[in-house]
């Protein structure tokens, strides 16, 4: 039992931080530009596939550096040549534009790399169990993912709150006119932020590709959950995204371990739901069965109770 608890918490933390890696870029872009980037998961997918190719040709270390840069540049290009032009037509146009980019990326990736899932191996130097506890092992690669996510959070946090660049970025968000008056190129700030956000998604792709799989449906599978993360955390809030990611990760893993059903819990309190009825059917569903849906339940609850999200300042 202890083993299950320890590993569930660890796995939850790792998965949560992985979610953070993905959603940090998204929340950054939204916080900065007010653009809900539907193509974000697409950039993640692009990162994973590029990571696969670069790892095969050169090595994992190179992929870790090169791929985020390439994806970031691509993101900046999309912002400069596409999003900026669409911007003046309002948010709906932006949404539709990023949606189109998302579809385009998915199709291009399938065109370039083919449809079957790719076999992405964990790099050999990280492919060993870090420690064994009871009869389960904790892979070193997970510890590596953990470290990268934490580093990413610290890096973003320091840049945004402790540097001059961060100051300008934050000011551009709330007072773009004033920042422009002071001689800063606000559109370029936006382009850089969009690029960095995409680079982070690319990095997440390189790192998560070997673990969560590199296949054509990967963007679709992760696309919805990252939106859940940033809405629960509060749109635009980095700390909120971190907290929400870890929360979702841990809630989901713990829920999987629970074989308790609502009916069973009620029965232990002496309330029967009657055999064979619809209520009985619903009551027999275990918490484990609904685990992957829990984040969406949390999303609905948060939207009702606290529409700004945990740390957000604006209504979602």
């Amino acid at each position: 039992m202890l083993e299950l608890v320890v590993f569930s918490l660890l796995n939850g933390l790792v998965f949560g931080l992985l979610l953070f890696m993905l959603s940090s870029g998204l929340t950054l872009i939204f916080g900065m530009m007010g653009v809900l980037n539907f193509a974000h998961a697409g950039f993640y997918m692009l990162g994973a596939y590029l990571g696969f190719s670069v790892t095969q040709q050169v090595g994992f270390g190179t992929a870790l550096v090169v791929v985020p840069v390439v994806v970031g540049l691509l993101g900046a290009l999309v912002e400069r040549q596409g999003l900026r032009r669409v911007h003046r037509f309002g948010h709906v146009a932006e949404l539709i534009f990023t949606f189109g980019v998302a579809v385009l990326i998915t199709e291009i990736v399938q065109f370039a790399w083919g449809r079957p899932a790719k076999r992405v191996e964990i790099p050999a130097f990280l492919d060993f169990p870090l420690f064994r506890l009871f009869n389960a092992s904790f892979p070193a690669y997970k510890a590596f993912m953990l470290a990268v996510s934490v580093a990413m959070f610290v890096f973003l946090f320091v840049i945004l709150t402790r540097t001059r660049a961060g100051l300008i970025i934050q000011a551009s968000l709330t007072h773009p006119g004033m920042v422009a008056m002071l001689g800063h190129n606000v559109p370029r700030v936006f382009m850089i932020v969009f690029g960095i956000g995409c680079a982070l998604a690319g990095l997440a792709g390189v790192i998560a590709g070997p673990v969560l799989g590199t296949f054509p449906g990967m963007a679709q599978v992760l696309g919805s959950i990252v939106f859940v993360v940033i809405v629960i955390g509060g749109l635009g809030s980095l700390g909120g995204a971190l907290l929400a990611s870890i929360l979702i990760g841990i809630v989901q893993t713990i829920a999987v371990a629970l074989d308790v059903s609502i009916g069973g819990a009620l029965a232990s309190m002496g309330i029967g739901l009657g055999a064979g009825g619809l209520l009985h059917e619903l009551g027999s569903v275990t918490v484990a069965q609904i685990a992957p849906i829990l984040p969406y339940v949390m999303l609905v609850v948060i939207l009702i109770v606290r529409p700004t999200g945990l740390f957000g300042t604006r209504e979602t």
Partner: protein
Amino acid sequence: MSKTTRVFSGVLVLGVVAWLASGAVSQEPIRIAYIDPLSGPFAATGENGLNQFRYAAAQINRAGGVLGRQLEIAPYDNKVSPQESLIQLKKVTGDGIQYVFQGNSSGVAHAISDAVLKHNQRNPGNRILYLNYSAVDPALTNDKCHYWHFRFDAHADMKMAALTDVIKANTRIKKIYIIGQDYSFGKAVAEAAVSMLKQKRPDIQIVGNELHPIGKVLDFSPYVQKILASGADAVITGNWGADMVNLAKAANDGGLKAPFYTYYAASDGVTAAIGAAGIDRIRLVHETHPGNPTPPKALSEYITGYRKLHPKNDVNQPRIHTGLSMLALAIKKAGVTDVDKVASALEGLEFTNLGGDQVVMRREDHQLQMPIYISVHTNKGIVHDLDASGFGLSLEHKIERDKAVQPVVGCKMERPS
């Protein structure tokens, strides 16, 4: 123009049109619809299936076709959605196609099967035939069976009976964990496993019986953790696609050493993605010889020819060849493409498949009867690998046709009078 000449020329024109039409018909190919995912997350599976159908059709055509006509496969994309499948089925009937092959997802199969039955009841002069090459929910040939549905794959219970026979003989297995996707097929696998294990090995303890949402789980580590905590000696799963790959990977990462008994842990990228993580651990129950270590000649030639055309794809569903060949045989036997006569010719039809096994379409429920194989994922002694990965499936057990037979349960078929 006088009245007689007018009538005469009218008849002449009609006659010419009819002659042209009949001439055109006899030269026209026999079109066969293929309704499966050709876009979206499962496109790889659907596309490989389509390639195998076209390859099988090309072989039949090279040998002279059917009734002097060529077979032509017409693809329809259903995105593995039952609703979309029904729209595509409407298109199929609109295009005048009489034969429909579909295989991916039993959920879709139920929708198509129902729709075909209704269509045939409403349009007795314009019936269609549903040929199911891969959807294995037993209900399709049991209580939901009908005359216009034929299945060429072994259904989940037949496969489970074979699996449990193997497990029965393995006395080291004391605790079993069942995990599957939460839909009709996943549930059918779990139910069959529980009831058959109870019967064959009452001493085995089912330490877990888990269903997870299909295609929604990103990280399987918590499930693996649960399996580890349960102390299971073996795992049974009907998972397929990304759900299978990610489960196998998480098992490897989490240090889970128990063997996996699976239905779909091969090909379409799964074999390559599992790679070394699955050696001697992943076992697969399937319907035709795996091609290793000593492949039957016909199968070997077929695979080699296919790989020349599609170097990255596998003949992962030899039943496609079986299904299409048996349809061709039935049309030849009937002498016409009329669905009623072809369906009747298919009943009880015998065929020797690529693996050299004699298979027969059971009259009572339209379930193909065949031997069942259990193979292991390995890289040793592999002649025909999968996914061009060096890994493949090697034969471990063969359950003969008479041993693999399952009784007809609750199928009351209404035959056309």
